[in-house]
């Protein structure tokens, strides 16, 4: 579908230009900076809703397409479009774009204009990542997005922010360099930067394997997968609340999205051959990280580890399809796994975002993230306790909340591939509840831990607004996920048909491949 007006461009450039304007306001006009940021993000959110309402659920083709030559010499294009995978993720991004502005309203006092501007620019760049259909354009957004996040952690972060930012930057940068090599190789092979063209490009076995590993380097760091996950806890701990929220809610999803957009369709044969690797790492993530989360003393670290564990469901859900195709003639379960992975990403966005906001609420009051400094918070902050228990329950996959839906789908699907996949992921039912609710026991419940806790003020209207919005989202997806999964069906079906067709060149016909 060709769009009449460039919605995607607006969604990218509106927040970026808005961000520039906010930054230009200068340090003195903090309240104007806040209001302008809020207006820009609200307008972006409102615009993005049209993506959902005008979306054609019956086609897997790219929609809202915009295509202009950009750097003709290298055939690089300004090529945008969305399908059932990227559209929900863009909505998630614009949704959090608003929430982060509200959540930081009076919490950030120094250099408000730069802080708000960073988030607006980041929002635009992330929408760019999800909508870019030109490989190099994607890469530009993918890398550029790191800069505002780097600044946010580096300038408004905690005491070890320098270590955390460098670790974060080097980790992700190192990963994406390998991807860049892959992208250039694809350009040389196909003579085009168009990702949809690459999906159709026949590739030899060895070439696919190298490409797959290159993509894996970039996306496994991003999502992150075990064992390249150790940057995440450090980044979260040092990041200000808003940074943690965007990092957990949106940035991690770019890793999952990358697997869907690049690894699976471009290198289906390598994906099929190396699915055991992804599955093994996913299962390690779910179980191993579950145990590690159990012993964390720092609330943000605990939630960060919990995120890694939950992302294990995403990578597992995406890659069990091959096992199901091999095992039986009945492919039921493959689509369930992929859609489960998508739902898990959206849901984890809501839940982890909400959890980091909850920790932020406490941190703003007591300036500690340590579990031992709290205890009995429910006594002085009953409304906060209500929200925190709800979100931690969602984190432990309680039915009726969004946290249940994706995990449920992936576990059901993985039983189809192998009993032990289902068994090991199912352990998260116990582990997730253990680390989530043990934290609740030590922080929220119990007798009042200290005089500081006794004097805590319950959440104010602004905080209540943010948490209520997220609670509504978590419950809506939990009680009625149909609208969310309906938009994916066509794209998922297409992807699954696509990955079953080998892209290996027929013997002797094409001399592609290394």
């Amino acid at each position, binding site marked *: 579908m060709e769009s009449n007006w460039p919605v995607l461009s607006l969604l990218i450039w509106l927040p970026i230009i808005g961000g520039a304007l906010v930054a230009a306001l200068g340090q003195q006009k903090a309240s104007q900076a806040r209001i302008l940021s809020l207006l820009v993000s609200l307008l972006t959110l409102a615009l993005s809703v049209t993506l959902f309402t005008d979306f054609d659920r019956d086609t897997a083709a790219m929609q809202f397409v915009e295509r202009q030559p950009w750097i003709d010499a290298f055939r690089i294009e300004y090529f945008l479009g969305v399908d059932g995978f990227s559209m929900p993720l863009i909505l998630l991004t614009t949704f959090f774009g608003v929430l982060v502005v509200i959540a930081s309203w009076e919490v950030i006092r120094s250099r408000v204009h730069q802080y708000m501007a960073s988030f607006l620019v980041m929002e635009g760049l992330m929408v760019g990542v999800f909508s870019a259909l030109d490989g190099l354009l994607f890469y530009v957004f993918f890398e550029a997005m790191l800069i505002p996040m780097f600044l946010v952690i580096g300038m408004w972060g905690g005491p070890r922010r320098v270590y955390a930012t460098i670790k974060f930057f080097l980790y992700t940068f190192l990963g994406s360099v390998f991807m860049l090599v892959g992208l250039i190789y694809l350009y040389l092979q196909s003579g085009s930067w168009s990702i949809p063209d690459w999906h159709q490009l026949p590739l030899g076995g060895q070439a696919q394997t190298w490409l797959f590993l290159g993509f894996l380097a970039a996306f496994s760091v991003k999502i992150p997968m075990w064992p390249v996950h150790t940057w995440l806890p450090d980044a979260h701990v040092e990041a200000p609340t808003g940074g943690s929220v965007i990092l957990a809610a949106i940035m991690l999803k770019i890793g999952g999205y990358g697997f869907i957009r690049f690894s699976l369709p471009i290198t289906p044969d390598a994906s099929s051959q190396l699915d055991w690797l992804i599955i093994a790492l996913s299962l390690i993530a779910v179980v191993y990280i579950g145990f590690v989360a*159990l*012993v964390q003393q720092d609330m943000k670290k605990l939630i960060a580890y919990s995120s890694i564990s939950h992302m294990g469901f995403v990578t597992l859900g995406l890659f069990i399809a091959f096992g199901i195709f091999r095992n039986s003639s009945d492919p039921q379960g493959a689509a369930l796994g992929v859609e489960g992975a998508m739902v898990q990403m959206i849901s984890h966005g809501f839940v982890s975002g909400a959890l980091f906001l909850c920790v932020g609420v406490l941190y703003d009051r007591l300036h500690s993230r340590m579990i031992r400094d709290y205890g009995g918070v429910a006594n002085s902050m009953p409304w906060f306790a209500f929200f925190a228990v709800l979100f931690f*329950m969602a984190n432990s996959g309680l039915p009726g909340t969004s946290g249940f839906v994706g995990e449920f789908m992936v*576990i059901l699907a993985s039983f*189809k591939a192998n009993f032990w996949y289902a068994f090991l992921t199912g352990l998260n039912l116990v582990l997730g509840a253990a680390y989530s*609710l043990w934290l609740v026991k030590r922080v929220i419940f119990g007798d009042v831990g200290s005089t500081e806790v006794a004097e805590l003020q319950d959440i104010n209207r602004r905080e209540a607004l943010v948490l209520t919005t997220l609670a509504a989202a978590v419950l809506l997806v939990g009680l009625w996920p*149909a609208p969310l*999964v309906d938009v994916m069906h066509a794209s998922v079906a297409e992807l699954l048909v696509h990955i079953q067709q080998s892209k290996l060149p027929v013997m002797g016909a094409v001399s592609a491949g290394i």
Partner: protein
Amino acid sequence: MSVETTLLLIPLLPLAAAIIAGLLRAQVGRAGAHWLTIIGVAVAFVLSAWVLYQQVFEGLGSLNYSVYTWMISDGIRFEVGFLVDHLTSLMMCVVTFVSLMVHVYTVGYMSEDPGYQRFFSYIALFTFSMLMLVMSNNFLQLFFGWEAVGLVSYLLIGFWYKRESAIFANLKAFLVNRVGDFGFLLGIAGILYATGSLDYAEVFAQAPEIAGQTYSILPGMEWQLITVICVCLFIGAMGKSAQAPLHVWLPDSMEGPTPISALIHAATMVTAGIFMVARMSPLFELSDAALSFVMLTGAFTALAMGLIGIVQNDIKRVIAYSTLSQLGYMTVALGVSAYSAAIFHLMTHAFFKALLFLGAGSVIIALHHQQDMRFMGGLRKHMPITWLTAWVGTLALVGFPLLSGFYSKDAIIEAVAESHRFGSSLAYWAVLLGVLVTSFYSFRLLYLVFHGKPRYTVDHEAGDHPPDGVLQHEPHESPWVVTVPLVLLAIPSVVIGYFTIDPVLFGGWLDDAITVLPQNDVLAELGQHFHGGMAMALHAFGTAPFWLMIAGFVLATVIYRLQPALADRLKSRMPGLHRLLENKYYWDELYQSLFVKRAVQLGQGLWEKADAGLIDGLLVNGSARLVSNVAARVRLWQSGYLFQYAFAMILGLIGILAVWVVV
């Protein structure tokens, strides 16, 4: 009003009441909270009773329909929908009736608690969740309700969240239940794997086809798929219905306020597992192995947990162990394919066990939250209504002829005797001995609480927090909001068995929900000897269970009424046995050292050794260190002295020349 609307209103009214009472606390006030929830649950009860009446007397058939489509993915329809047959409508009535009684009772019991409105909100939310569970027509919603009742149970056990013991107990309860739910979820995944559907009707229709299939969990080992599924599902039931070895959470759940011990941890939620297995009878019937497992688990729980009840001093814990034991009886009944008998006992037990718990609660408030029976005694003359209803509940529990518990328990014991399932003779002895044990601990409780001399003293100047055994005021009978529910529960505890045994067990009244293969149908065998409730009661005087019950009564009377010193002497005679029972077979200690400590150690080890040590220490920061070390060395060369650079150039030049000359 159409039937569909009625059915929708039944769960939604308590839900609406729960939301309003919980979130609009300031607006509705205390009275508003209890009136809203009581009316919501009362209307739900009346409507449930109407549905039951329509089905029994007006020929309303069973209903099975979808309320809304939760999601469609991969061609699988995930629905929220209702299946209302006789089994469902019976459960709906039991749940809403006990819930209503507990709501009314709570007005008195919790009157001085600051969390009054929160409590009403929770119990109304529980009623909604439990109704969704029993009314479900598919596995998704079943799991939904299953976990939702677990959530409310968690919130209510930890209701007094300042108490360390309460928030320990609720975490434990939730986690142990999650272990069960883990099995349950695998079972559901197995169902989807085998049938491609989660709808009861579609799954049951395909059940015979699953029967022949095998499934390989470990390479080289082929299992009956149906057995794998049923065992997994039953693990879920073991969590929720507290069967050994997943029973450890239930005694601790007594940390919650007494009304919820009656509602959730005796009458309704803990029976969800029993209900579930009965609902799944078309599947369980196909696996003799799974049913044997079910039966033996139940038999062990029935006897072993009853024995612990003998040595408990906390009045609520005695009843809690009694609940475990009775749930064991129900499970045994399921295991011998006497599903109707299990449901029948579930129903009678709901009434008399709720009665006993609420009676215990009445005693506890009279004694200002004293739960230790060693500081009770002689309450008979102060609390006549509580005393009388406690006797009624006890007689029903021990199975005194003509009372409700007699019919349901005797039916189970007879059914086990008739069964030819592997291990059934072992189970028979367990349930038979269990009668003696039940009778003994029950009468012991009655004597210690209501009879003999008071073991507390009254001191009007004792202050607000007197030591154990000292009261500020004479105990007195509880207010009417407490005693009326006691009386209303006592009535069905007496009569419900006599009036319903024939239709429920032998009249095929549950046949629209329960499937029993002809070769397993022990209840049909029993039915041939059944000549009405009166004849069964008269016949009982010549049977072993009756005399075992009498023996328990006599023993308890001698030890706790006539020769009070005897109890201590017995205790010192058998110190090993007493210690074993007092420590509940050391189950908690075992789990603590085997799982809890190990899990934390493992997490700590993985975090410190693997994450921080290996990945971060060696690989990430190690490579960074390597780079900086190399850089530090190399940097020395950039000294800035011209003569060093010149010297290096000359060396280089010589080197190049040398290579050129040699080659």
